[in-house]
């Protein structure tokens, strides 16, 4: 079956511009996560969606970052007025929180470079 997909795979943008990153989770997965992976920094949690519940936004680093999940499926992470420190790989993951599951399935990531 299809896995988690993300687009674009690479994005180069100028400082100050807005960017949108897209994630298509595995069909039927109710949970969706966004992470940021910087060199030597591991995975930094950004935001978590679970079904129709209010998202957990506790990991968003500033108010320039926001995310939506439409219809409980596709998610978009938006970064406004990008800064050079936003350069990183942005990973999306989905999971099914049914009994015996819980592991996350990751997409290939979007590499964002802010020049």
């Amino acid at each position, binding site marked *: 079956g299809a896995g988690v997909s993300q687009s674009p795979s690479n994005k180069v943008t100028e400082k100050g511009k807005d960017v949108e990153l897209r994630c298509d989770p595995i069909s039927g997965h109710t949970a969706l*996560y966004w992470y940021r992976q910087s060199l030597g920094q591991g995975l930094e949690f950004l935001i978590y969606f679970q079904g129709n519940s209010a998202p*957990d936004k506790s990991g968003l680093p500033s108010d320039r970052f926001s995310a939506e999940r439409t219809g409980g499926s596709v998610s978009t992470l938006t970064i406004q007025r990008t800064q050079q420190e936003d350069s990183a790989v942005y990973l999306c993951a989905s999971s099914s929180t049914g009994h015996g599951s819980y*592991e*996350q399935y990751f*997409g*290939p990531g979007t590499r964002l470079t802010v020049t």
Partner: protein
Amino acid sequence: AQSVTQLDSQVPVFEEAPVELRCNYSSSVSVYLFWYVQYPNQGLQLLLKYLSGSTLVKGINGFEAEFNKSQTSFHLRKPSVHISDTAEYFCAVSRNTGNQFYFGTGTSLTVIP
């Protein structure tokens, strides 16, 4: 709150030698534990997980990990590594409600021929 510590950022090991990658976590509640692997230029994939039951769990590619509740550890081991095991390994923990995950900073395993 939970946190995960991977004590070694880089581990070089010779081919066919054993390896242990260390992971410690802090949590005041019951947790689920995971190891993920990221091969060069690839996405993360699940290596193994502990949800309940036997504290020794086996994963793909000959890896295994042991959950030690008293020491709050979940170390990853392999008795004999191959060149193809060269990758970044991440330990992760979540509460047993299965929502937010916390990842360690990763351990870079390099297998030397």
